[in-house]
């Protein structure tokens, strides 16, 4: 028999690698998929960059706070594209009607989720690295110049994006492609409340309470503190990590509850709407 006993181990990097390879094959076979990863972040960055340029010419505050808009849009893209990269890879299985094959294989849910996380980083890198270089060329804004702060911002944002991706994957397992729009729009709930483009103080008091319950709010506040006040707020990042840990744990619990429900309702084999 060609399947050894190791095939039943609890966690197999080989199976994770197999799934990453599957998505890599898919990306390689389709240039529109690759183009799509770069196209929209570029459009966003150019639009907000030129807006920032225009505003800074007419406002002494914004001329001091160079890069806050471009910085915000690039960090927002990490959050949004991170989740989208996760969810689209998952949706590819539903579009291909391949979910039954995977669910019936020795692939474990945790391995599947890890492969989707890796793919979200790969897809993000393909989209964001060229765009961040374009931001230097067009506006002199060097995202990489944030150094260690960027790494901390990135880790916090990607954790949030994975948490949302895991939760949405659970919904898709349970409700099929009828819930597809959740994958595309869920993160937009975060856009106004996490204060991507403005400080939390702008929000009404009751909404500020909600904003501070969401990990990305701390990252965007931290980014503004870094770009405007030239201060790295480690306290904000620590709070963001703590909230992310809670959010991710809740998302994983939600995913497994949805998976169980999908087994009860028999939706794993259908995957349709």
């Amino acid at each position, binding site marked *: 028999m060609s399947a050894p006993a190791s*095939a*039943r181990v609890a966690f197999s990097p080989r199976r994770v690698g197999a799934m990453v390879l599957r998505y890599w*094959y*898919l990306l390689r076979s389709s240039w529109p998929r690759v183009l799509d990863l770069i196209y929209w972040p570029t459009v966003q960055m150019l639009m907000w960059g030129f807006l920032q340029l225009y505003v800074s010419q007419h406002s002494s505050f914004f001329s001091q706070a160079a890069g806050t808009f471009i910085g915000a849009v690039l960090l927002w893209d990490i959050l949004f594209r991170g989740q989208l990269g996760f969810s689209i890879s998952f949706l590819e299985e539903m579009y291909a009607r391949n979910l039954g094959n995977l669910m019936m294989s020795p692939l474990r849910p945790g391995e599947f989720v890890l492969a989707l996380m890796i793919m979200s980083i790969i897809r993000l890198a393909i989209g964001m690295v060229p765009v961040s270089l374009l931001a230097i060329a067009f506006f002199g804004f060097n995202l990489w110049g944030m150094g260690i702060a960027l790494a901390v911002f990135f880790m916090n944002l990607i954790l949030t994006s994975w948490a949302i991706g895991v939760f949405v994957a659970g919904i898709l397992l349970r409700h099929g492609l009828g819930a597809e729009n959740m994958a595309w729009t869920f993160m937009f709930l975060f856009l106004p409340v996490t204060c991507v483009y403005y400080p939390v103080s702008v929000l009404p008091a009751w909404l500020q309470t909600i904003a501070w319950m969401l990990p990305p709010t701390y990252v965007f506040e931290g980014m503004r503190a870094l770009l405007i006040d030239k201060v790295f707020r480690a306290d904000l990042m620590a709070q963001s990590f703590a909230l992310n840990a809670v959010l991710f744990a809740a998302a994983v619990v939600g995913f497994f509850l949805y998976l169980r429900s999908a087994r*009860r309702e028999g939706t794993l*084999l*259908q995957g349709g709407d």
Partner: protein
Amino acid sequence: MLAPSAAHVPVAVDRLVKVYKTVTAVNGVTFVLESGSCTALLGGNGAGKTTTIATLMGLVEPTSGRVSVLGARMPRQRHLVLHRMNFESPYVNMPMRLTVRQNLTVFGLLYGCADVADRIRSLAEDLDLADFLDRPTGKLSSGQKTRVALAKSLINEPELLLLDEPTASLDPDTADWVRGRLEQYRRRRQATVLLASHNMGEVERLCDRVIMMKAGRIEDDDTPPRLLARYGRRNLEEVFLDIARGTREAREAAQ
């Protein structure tokens, strides 16, 4: 751990019930499959065949009853045995943009094949895939896609093979070819096969036992020759119709 007594029995289903909200798809089904046997699960649309097979695969949680596959309780212990079984079903596809080789490589790795390239070479030889191994799966004809799906289902040389309509939508020549390969595989590997099909010729050729389902229950369960004798029919299609329509012959046979 696997139950030691059940480890030799490929499939044991005991009083399986599956209710979807208000619809009872499977209602108290009990059967055991012998090692190396080929059994057909027959029944009209909505008889409960697919739900029964999906439960064996661990994709559906029973409402009540017990399902044991290769000694593992399904779906709770499925990860102990999923690498020893496989399936083919019209409800799933292989990813269309990937080439046949890429798809088989991914599944070979998922199923823990020791030498994936060698296994693909061997399957390509057995199933005549060599000419289109490097073509996108979506560009293949129905017959070629079925051969690829069959290759995927044999990639780990499963001890238990679950087949849901393996020759649906194939021309008679290709369907016959697929049946030949399945027979060959079962003999060589001494594999246990459970087959859901609407093609009675296929069932007569491949299966040594037939389980007839209707409205979620087992209506009859025997070898093809004994079923033919009991219903006084010349072929399984007539037996199938008797059971599906609840004719006098079916009622008498049941008594």
